[in-house]
């Protein structure tokens, strides 16, 4: 993966450089192992963190508590997946709508401004046009505020206050749906902006050709720009999936029983916080890593399928794995 940039920045190592590399690798490896042992293993061992009764229920199938522990973890994990899936679905649908809306409004705003005093056109015909224009600008401003608001707030706050405010005003349901609403409010905005910037960065020729064919603005977007934007921005969208999965762990603040909260309950019963969180971390890293690899794979498939060389119309999607932060100002964590 980094071979290309590696060979650009420095020469292919010769025999001397290779020898130095091997020696330094061995030395560095030994140093690392020693550091891990002295600073991580020894203190933990001194506090008894490697005792069997702390690890047993998690890793030893013959332990009495093992099936119960994994039942609870499995339940928590299922809840995590359910919340994430619902949030992703809702964010995709609403985010697409938002992205299309904002793109169209930006497009319309670029056009000529209708004037009340256009000579030759009767006033009666001009007023509704101007009013409609004003409404469009109004909606555009509102959508801008909406986007900046939910993009600038921490997701934790959004979830916490969504649950509270919805509850107070009569929408009473399980914590799952509050979590999904909170996550969706945030992610639809991010996805909307991803898609919008994808559409804006497509070559202008696409839009002009569509115009020449007589397609209306909305038709252009739906049939030509949006599908391409999805394809181009797929890695960024997939890393947003990873973000949603990680953010479901914030459901603890409204007592949603996802895997981290279940972990907390297990800790109350077994008294082994480090062990439980270590296992849950491994599960998360595993799942998210697979999803991230999916993004890399998708990126490569797209690059293979293109007829134009990559980079011609693609905004800085250089690092597979979705680091499309350059054009998107959206999601980094």
């Amino acid at each position, binding site marked *: 993966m980094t071979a290309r940039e590696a060979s650009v920045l420095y020469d292919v190592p010769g025999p001397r450089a290779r020898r130095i590399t091997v020696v330094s690798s061995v030395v560095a490896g030994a140093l690392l192992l020693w550091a891990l042992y002295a600073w991580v293993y020894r203190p933990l061992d001194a506090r008894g963190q490697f005792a069997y009764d702390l690890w047993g229920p998690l890793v030893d199938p013959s332990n009495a508590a093992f099936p*119960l522990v994994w*039942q609870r*973890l*499995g*339940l928590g994990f299922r809840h995590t997946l359910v919340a994430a899936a619902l949030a992703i679905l809702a964010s995709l649908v609403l985010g697409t709508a938002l992205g299309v809306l904002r793109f169209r409004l930006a497009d319309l705003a670029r056009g000529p401004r209708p004037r009340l005093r256009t000579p030759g056109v009767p006033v009666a015909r001009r007023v509704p046009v101007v009013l409609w224009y004003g409404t469009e600008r109004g909606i555009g401003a509102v959508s801008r505020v909406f986007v900046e608001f939910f993009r600038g707030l921490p997701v934790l706050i959004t979830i916490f206050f969504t649950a509270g405010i919805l509850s107070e005003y009569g929408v009473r349901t399980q914590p799952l749906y509050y979590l999904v609403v909170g996550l969706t409010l945030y992610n639809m905005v991010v996805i909307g902006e991803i898609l919008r910037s994808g559409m804006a960065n497509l070559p202008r020729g696409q839009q002009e050709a569509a115009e020449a064919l007589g397609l209306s603005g909305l038709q252009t977007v739906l049939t030509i720009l949006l599908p391409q934007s999805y394809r181009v921005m797929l890695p960024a969208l997939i890393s947003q999936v990873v973000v949603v999965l990680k953010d479901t762990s914030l459901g603890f603040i409204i*007592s949603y029983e996802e895997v981290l909260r279940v972990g907390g*309950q297990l800790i109350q*019963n077994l*008294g082994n916080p480090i062990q439980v969180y270590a296992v849950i971390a491994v599960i998360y890293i595993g799942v998210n890593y697979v999803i991230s690899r999916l993004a890399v794979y998708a990126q490569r498939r797209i690059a293979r399928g293109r007829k134009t060389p990559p980079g011609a119309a693609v905004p800085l999607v250089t690092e597979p794995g979705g680091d499309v932060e350059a054009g998107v100002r959206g999601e980094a964590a």
Partner: protein
Amino acid sequence: MKMHRLMAVAAAAVLALGVAGCGGGSSDTSANPAVDTSASFAAGTTMAKLNKAQSIRIGTKFDQPLFGLKGLDGKPAGFDVEIAEVIAGKLGIPASKIQWVETPSKVREDYLAQDRVDLVVATYTINGERKKKVDFAGPYYMAGQDIMVKKGDSSITGPESFRSGDKKVCSVTGSTPAGKIREYLKDPASQLVLFDVYSKCADALRTGQVDAVTTDNVILLGLVDQSKGAFQLVGKPFTQEPYGIGLRKGDTAFRSFVDDTLEAAQKDGSYARAWKDTAGKVDAQTPTLPTIDRY
């Protein structure tokens, strides 16, 4: 292809983990309180409605050892849970038909006001502020705020020990004890640590980040029990925390019923048994029901 194999392995792992959670709950081994199957109530009362529906939604804590803690089997257990089952029994509803709802401290009043639960038995301290929003039956237990320290630490003898400014204390954000201990602190910014659950406070005490943990003495008892001898209670409660059963405001008939049930439970020994089965395993002194406040 490498990608396809990776995806296949991942999908299998995810399925396995998800299916693991599908196991049925284990059988209930503790003896459940008696269920009054012949109970009948005046028409129109909450009791009649619940009896007819044969189900009741009860709010309790899922993370307080000894009082309301969700066990490895996925069911809450503790003194609050037992008391709630006694009341449900008197309503003619078996323990298996109770819908347990998690009510952390901050949502207790809201859930009652929004009719999401019928009762709240969750280490719920009765105070004047809360009485404006909900009604209380009971009290069914008299707790007090206390301080927990590392075993052998005699430098902290009470809340006054924090006035000098060099002792650090931990509690849970938004709780009454946290607000109370603030009054004794010289500089909260450098003395007070707040987390979202008590187990984190216990961890912080164990590793020495803080010198003490403060909350109701029964919750501390649970933490002391779990600490396997590492912690001890200072043992001088400096407030009175009467635990009550929360109900919707204005439901006087239901409140009288619950009050009567509590007194009956004291008389027929089910109150004592509820304690012995749960918190009694750590604190052998079985309490008696405090005087019920029928206001």
